[in-house]
């Protein structure tokens, strides 16, 4: 079975983190531990949303899965860099590159 691509959009912060967490956990609950998160439509990302990404990846790995990120937007990449997420997560500059290695 292949990876599931999840496209996120809008502003991801403490206000929207609960909804994000629920959405990603639902994907895991569907039995799909391979998630490619496309962040290119995301306008803002705070530490609350970073926490959700980290938590989702931990759960995915418990099921031998993985969470990969697709991101080119400088403002979002910067937050990933500052929090070390670009090194902790497989991070790709395009969806096709992320899917090529799945």
């Amino acid at each position, binding site marked *: 079975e292949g990876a599931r691509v999840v496209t996120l959009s809008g502003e991801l912060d403490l206000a929207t983190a609960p909804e994000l967490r629920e959405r990603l956990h639902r994907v895991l609950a569907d039995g799909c531990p391979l998630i490619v998160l496309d962040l290119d439509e995301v306008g803002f990302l705070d530490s609350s949303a970073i926490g959700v990404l*980290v938590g989702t990846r931990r759960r995915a790995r418990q099921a031998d899965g993985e969470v990969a990120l697709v991101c080119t937007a400088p403002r979002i990449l*910067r937050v990933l860099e500052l929090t070390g997420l670009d090194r902790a997560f497989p991070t790709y500059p395009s969806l096709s590159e992320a899917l090529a290695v799945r």
Partner: protein
Amino acid sequence: MSDEVAIDLPARVEYLNAVRSLLTAFAESTTDLPPSRVDDLCLAVTEAYVNAIDASRKHSEFGELSIRMCCHREGNAVIVEVTDHAGGFDPAAQTPPPDPTAPDRLQFERGLGIPLMRAVANVLEFESTADGSLVRLVLMPQRP
């Protein structure tokens, strides 16, 4: 006569987005911050505001506390202060920020707020009293 922006809001997550709209309008119309630093400003202030909301929710048994944000410029420095009434805290007593390269990095879902503020602000100061906390962020056009 004033370049200043001051706003009192209930401690609710629903206002985060509007706070960033306001900050962006302030930064773009009144300061010399380039776009990447306006992004940094929005990130740092969101983190300060998120902490103030978190603390206000825990502190209040009676209802919503309010949070104050003030923005002004001094030369090409942009100064934003976020003040809450959530009882204060000891910034020095916080556990150190997780090392992003540590193998246990993936255990940390929290504790990133203050490190992010520190990473993007040229100056970060806390003042804490029994009433609450003040976070002062100073951003210059150049990254620290």
